[in-house]
Structures are given as C-alpha cells and as structure tokens.
C-alpha cells in the first residue's frame, strides 16, 4: 500500500482502473454498449443508474465474472483480462455483492478467510485465522465472535462480515454493491468510517447505492449509466441531485410529487372506514412484545423503526409467517389464529418479504409461474388455472407494473432486482388481497421503479385495500402512510396520524437522534405508553 500523503487532494492522478469502450451482449440484449469508466486511487466513486442500466454488468466485467465482447480494461496502467473473480481479486479488485454471498453453515472466521486460510504445517492455521478475523472485525467495530456460525447473525451483520472479508484482501479497488441496503443508520455510519479510512489509504472505492443521501455523503465522483450506455462522469459536488435523477431516468420525475398531494386527500376520506384487521396484544417471545394494531379498509399504515426494532417481526405475525404466542388477531370481527401463511392467504392477507431472494422469488420458474404461484396454491393443485387465464394474468401485470423484460417465459432469476420485486407484487395482487403487507418493497431498486411501486400502493388503498408498509426510508413511510406506527426495541412506542409528522419527529421517536447508543436518552422516551392510540 502506498504511503498516505497530502497528494490525495492534489489534481487527478492517473486512474487506477480504466475501462474503455466496454460492450457486453447477452442473448437478445445488449447489456453494455461502448461504456467508458475510470476510478482514481483515494476516491470514492459511485455508479448510478436505474435497474437494468448496466451497473451490475459493468461491475461483473471489471471483476472478471463476465468476459467482455469489446473494449479494454486497464489496471494500474497495464491492460488486463481476468478470467474470473479470483484473478481479479489477486490483482487487487475486491467485491462485496448486493446479496450476501457467504456460507451460513461456516463460522464467521472461516467465511472471512475462505480461500486464503493461513497455513500451518500444510494444514489450516486455525489460531491465526481466528486472530486475523478478530482483528478485522474489531477494525470494523463489530462485536462478533469469529467462532460463531455466520447463519446465526442478522443480515446486517452478515453484510459487515462480507465487507470485512473484502477488506482483508490487500485491495487496490474495493467494490461495494448496495452495501447499505440492509444496514441501519448506525451501521451505515460505521461503514462510512471504514470507507473513509480506506480511501485515505489510497484505495479506490466503488460505492453503488440507491440511497442518494448516502451517495452525496460519501462519494467524490460518479458515473451515470442508462440502458447500457454511458451518460457521463461527474464530480459529486458539482452535480445537483435533481440533475442526477434526471440523467438517471432520462425524464422529469413528477410522480413522487403527485403522490404527496394525494396522500393527504385520502386521509380525510378514509378516516371513518371500517376496521379490517385488528391485532390485540399480539406478540411472540424474542421477536416482538405484545402490541395492538388496528388497520382500516383502504388505510395505509406505515411501520417505522430501526432494523431489529421488531417492525418485520410484527408484520410476519400478521402475515401468518411466524406464529404469535400471545394475543389475538381479529379479521372483520372474527378472531383467528394464523398458523401458516396459507391460512393468512385464504383470508386475503398477503405478506411480501423483505428478503426477496430467499423468501420471495422462485428463481428457476418463469415470470408467469411466479405470478400465478400464490393464486394457484390457494386454489389447490387439482384446479389448475387454465393456460389462457395464466397468460392473461401475466400479461396484464407485466403491463400494469411495467415488468421488463415483458416476457412471461423469462426465468425470474434473470430479472433485475426491481423487476423481481414487481413480479412479487404481481403475485400478491393476483390473489386480490384485502391486506397487503409490504416489507421493504423498495429496497435496492431504482428510483423509477420505486416511484411506480409507491404509486401502486396508493391506487390500491384508494380501491379499498389495506396496506401495511415497512421501509427504512422514513421519507417514503411519511409520503405513503395515513398512519405511522413507530417501533423501538421490540415495542410499539407510538401510533400516530400522519398529520404534520416530519422525518425529524419520527427520528426522535425511533431513537434519540441518529446516535442511538446513548441509553439514558432512550430511557427518557421509554415510558411512552406502548399501545398509545391503539384503539381508534
């Protein structure tokens, strides 16, 4: 690693990575078309673009996952051609992908050192491995036992472990693909601290994220792609956000503003609607403390809280994914015990998981099969949905949700994240739910798809569907919800009408500002009645 000097801030030096005229084609698609891209040492660079813009493809070209059809890649002045990620890694290019690609059944230390285990007498030096992992984890400020199983940790911690793994390689270039999508504010701050320290050691960092705030906070330079072509390279400080968004989507974004106005219009209309579902002292040990939650027909209720606050856990009880061990659930006046998702679906409650890959899509099935799956399961196997009806369903949702590619026979795993999310939405809409629970439906997807999904939630609620909406983005929660329920430390701490609520006021409720480590400050908010506003 070169020495750290004030040279960092000097005029641009020669780029460490330079890609020129990169083209990659897949059967039927041109994923990248003559794209130029460069990265400088000691800079945090961002790659921006909608889903399908070619960001992932470009990263995979750089890391040797895909071969390129045309163009050149230069690393530290020398032309390179990697035949796989291992070669790229050996050359100093490390990657942390969007989905955690580690082995849950191995220990944390084994995951961090996998493939580079310290050797001792021809075997693995277990002690050195543990020590090295512990150092790396400590460097990230993570209190994790290196000997524990990876699978025992939350998704967020797994993500940080993946980053620890990437940092361990003496990386010249570190690629972080959506590293913050499953992290809460504290963890993001922690990650940024690590990114800055690596940047100061002259590492070139590629930070890919859909969170504009984060991009503007951490990045020095960014490259915008659209539909597989280069739009341009910009210094972050010289590019206004609104300009960036326009460059990314190539059109003016007015949909979001529309929503804002309509949100408040609906609040008034629906204030006296009948309660569709009501949770009463519903809880599950180790997941969520007993809490009340009534949801009216046509109401959008937002759940706000940090990762691990119990927001997902609570929603899972309502969706029948996990069984509640206390309390009861009343659906249209009838008390029910949901033991399986199937029973929830039979009562037209749909739960769309935040974990798209493991709990959502069925990757090797087609778009059509994925869309009809829940409906078909509900009908039973011996009453197949006629082929013609399936095609109609698939076609209508592909059009309504603008799913791309619009081919019902495409395998879902080949779709981009945003389009997979839309396929999942289509699956749930196909069963005509009365209550749709959306857990982080807009995570890791581009701004255009995000706006489309938000708009959809709105239209659904207007037509009488209840929606329980969970998102880490408080702006989004506020924009969409009629009511916001705030959770902290597995307790419901507030249940508020969305009338004059601001992000700041929510943040104060969720924690004492962004730094939630101050226990005393938390304790002051603690006495808030946990079921305030529970009965309306």
């Amino acid at each position, binding site marked *: 690693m070169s020495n750290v000097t004030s040279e960092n801030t000097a005029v641009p030096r020669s780029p460490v990575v330079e890609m020129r005229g990169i083209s990659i084609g897949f059967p039927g698609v041109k994923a990248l078309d003559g794209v130029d891209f460069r990265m400088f040492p000691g800079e945090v660079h961002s790659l921006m673009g909608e889903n399908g813009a070619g960001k992932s493809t470009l990263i995979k070209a750089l890391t040797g996952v895909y071969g390129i059809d045309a163009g050149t890649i230069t690393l530290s002045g020398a032309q390179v051609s990697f035949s796989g990620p291992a070669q790229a890694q050996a050359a100093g290019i490390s990657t942390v992908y969007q989905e955690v690609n580690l082995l849950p059944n191995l220990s944390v230390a084994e995951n961090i050192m996998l493939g580079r285990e310290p050797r001792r007498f021809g075997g693995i030096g277990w002690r050195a491995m543990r020590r090295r992992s512990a150092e790396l984890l400590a460097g990230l400020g993570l209190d994790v036992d290196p000997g524990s199983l990876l699978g025992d940790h939350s998704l967020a911690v797994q993500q940080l472990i993946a980053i620890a793994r990437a940092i361990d390689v003496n990386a010249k270039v570190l690629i972080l693909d959506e590293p913050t999508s499953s992290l809460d504010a504290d963890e993001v701050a922690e990650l940024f601290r690590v990114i800055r320290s690596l940047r100061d050691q002259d590492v070139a960092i590629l930070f890919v994220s859909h969170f504009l705030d984060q991009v503007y906070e951490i990045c020095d330079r960014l490259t915008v792609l659209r539909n597989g072509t280069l739009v341009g390279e910009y210094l972050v400080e010289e590019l206004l956000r609104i300009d960036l968004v326009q460059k990314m989507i190539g059109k003016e974004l007015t949909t979001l503003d529309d929503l804002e106005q309509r949100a408040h219009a609906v609040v008034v209309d629906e204030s006296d609607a009948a309660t569709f579902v009501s949770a009463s002292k519903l809880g599950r040990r180790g997941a969520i403390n007993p809490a009340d939650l009534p949801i009216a027909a046509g109401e959008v209720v937002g759940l706000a809280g940090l990762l691990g606050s119990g927001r997902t856990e609570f929603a899972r009880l309502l*969706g029948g*994914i996990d069984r509640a061990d206390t309390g009861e659930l009343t659906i249209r006046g009838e008390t029910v015990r949901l033991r*399986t*998702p*199937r029973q*929830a*679906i*039979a009562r037209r409650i749909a*739960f769309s*998981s935040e974990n798209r890959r*493991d*709990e*959502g*899509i*069925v*990757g*090797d*099935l087609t778009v059509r*099969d994925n869309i009809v*799956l*829940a409906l*078909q*399961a*509900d*009908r039973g*196997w*011996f*009453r*197949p*949905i006629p082929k013609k009806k399936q095609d109609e369903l698939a076609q209508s949702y592909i059009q309504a949700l603008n799913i791309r590619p619009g081919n019902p026979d495409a395998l879902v795993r080949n779709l981009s994240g945003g389009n997979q999310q839309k396929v999942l939405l289509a*699956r749930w809409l196909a069963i005509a739910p009365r209550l749709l629970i959306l857990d982080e439906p807009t995570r890791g997807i581009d701004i255009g798809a995000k706006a489309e999904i938000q708009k959809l939630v709105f239209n659904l609620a207007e037509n009488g569907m209840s929606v329980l909406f969970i998102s880490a983005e408080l702006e989004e929660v506020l924009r969409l919800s009629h009511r916001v329920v705030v959770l902290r430390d597995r307790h419901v701490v507030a249940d508020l009408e969305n009338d004059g609520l601001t992000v700041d006021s929510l943040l104060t409720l969720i924690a004492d500002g962004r730094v939630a480590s101050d226990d005393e400050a938390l304790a002051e908010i603690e006495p808030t009645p946990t079921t305030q506003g529970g009965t309306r």
Partner: protein
Amino acid sequence: MSGLAKVVSHRLFWPIVMLLVLFAINLVAFPGFFTITVRDGQLFGSLIDILRNGAPTLIIAVGMTLVIATRGIDLSVGAVAAISGAVACSIILGSPEPGNLATVAVAVAVALLISLVLGVWNGFLVAVLGIQPIIATLILMTAGRGVAMLITEGQILTVNSPPFKFLGSGFWFGVPVAVVIAAVVFGIAALVTRRTALGMLIESVGINPEASRQAGLRARGLLFAVYTFCALCAAIAGLILTANTAAADANNTGLFIELDAILAVVIGGTSLAGGRYTLFGTLVGALVIQTLVTTVYTVGIPPIATMVFKAAVVTIVCLLQSPTTAASISGFRRRLAARAGKGLAAS
C-alpha cells in the same frame, strides 16, 4: 447455425445423441438389432428387450424424478421393491390356490398398500421430522431388506402362479406387460403433474422451499405425496421383477436399482439440486442405461469389463452435460467463428 446451436444447447441433446450412438454400435455388432418380429402374435426383438428389461428402472425413475425435483432423493426404492415382491410371493404361496387370479389380485393389492405405508414413512421423516432425505431414506434402504428377509423367512420364495408370472413376462396385445405398465405409470405421472398445477408446485418447493411456504404452498403435503408415489413406483417395479423370475429374493430383488434410477434422472437432465424436472428426459435416461446393458451383451464385452464400460459411458454423458463443458464448447465455437470472421476481413 443459430437453429443448430439451439438444438445442441437443448438439455436433452447429448443424452439423445448418446442413445443414437449406442443404437449405432449395436447395429454394427448385430445387423438385426432394429428387426422386430411377430411370433405367436407377440413382438420380439432387441428393442423390445430393451423396453421390457428397462421397464422396472423406468418406473422407479419416474417416481425418483419427482422426489429429486423437491430437492430430495429416495435411496429406499430397491428395498421397497424387495419388500413388495416378498409380500406378494408369500401371500401367493400361503394361498391354497396360487394360480387363482383373485389370489394374485389380493397379493398385488396388499403389496402396493404396504408400499404406500413405506412411502408415508419416508415422507414423515423428511417432511415432518425434517431429516435430510438421503439420511431419511437410507434408514428404509437398510432396514427394508431386513424386513423383506423376515417376510421371506430368509428363503427365496419361488411361486408357480401363471397370473402372477404374466406381470413380468406376459404379453398384452403383443406388447410385453411390463412395458404396458411402465407406459401407464409414465403417462399417469406426466398427465397428473403437467395437466394439473402439481408439477409447478413441486418444482417451486424444490427451488425455494421458504418462498413456496410463504406463497401458501403446502410443502409438507407435496413431500408426502412424492415420497408415497415413489414408493408405489418402487413396489410396482418390484412386482414386475419378482414376477419375471417367479421368485422373491429379499437380498437381490432390485439391488442397486436406486442408483440406476437416480442415474436415469440425472442423465435425463433433471438436476439433483431440485427444481425443474423433465419426465421425458428421465425416459431417455432410462433407455440409455438399458441400451448400455444390452450393448455389453451384443458387442460381447467380457463380463469382467462390463462395469468399467458402463462407468466410462456414464462419465462421458455426465461430462457432455456439465455446464463447464458446455461453456468451453461454446467458447471454442466462438473462437472458431472469430477466426473465420478475421479470415474474411483479411481477404
């Protein structure tokens, strides 16, 4: 060219090529290979032999395909085949009229019913107790032979019952009964899983069990169904095998047939990782395996080299199907095309 590339990249391309190559080898070694003659109103010929001898493997492979599609595997099919043969033979032997059609019907019915119980047992271990399928079915694989041994009391039960023997070596409108039974099992499985939503739901559970559960699928019920069906297939195959030799041998009926069945499924292009399955591929796989055995005899490969020959052919098929091979073949073709393109540009 692109049409050809499409054919070559089809997952059944190499298995079918293999089958055709084996046919060609047989034809060279034995010019009358494709000849089918009618003797006493019954079809005879090498191809008919392949179909008849391959029927038990095919029947089991059909059940195995569905089990594998759910990410499972059933090692107990050989043992279940042995049990069903033993049950049927002991009932026939214990009856005062072994040649009576009703006796045989009862024997077959009881054998099949018992296989359903065995299938439910496997399904219980896998779906309810959550034991890994390879371990769960290993239990019955080893214990099952013991059970069969208890039923036969350690003897080889030889029966003299024409209606029973008919199942193994009889003919029905000129076609061997075993082939008819295999065709019916295959047809029913294909029809039931592909005409209803069952096939799609099975694949869904095999690809992503948790997503399937959240989508409201009854994964447990599906697992029970496929393991029970697989055991039923095994029992049918066991009856054919036993009837063919008119003897129930607890130790040798259906010995290693689970491996042939799994191999047929894999050659047919269904991944052991579960998910998408193809029954037609399994049919091709079963035919490849049986043709291979026939080839060994027609070409006259010495018995001591038989296993090695079989292993070599299987290795070749698996190599041809591996994604790595496919990638390097397409890479080779691309380089060839690039070179040809350059040559054109230069001239």
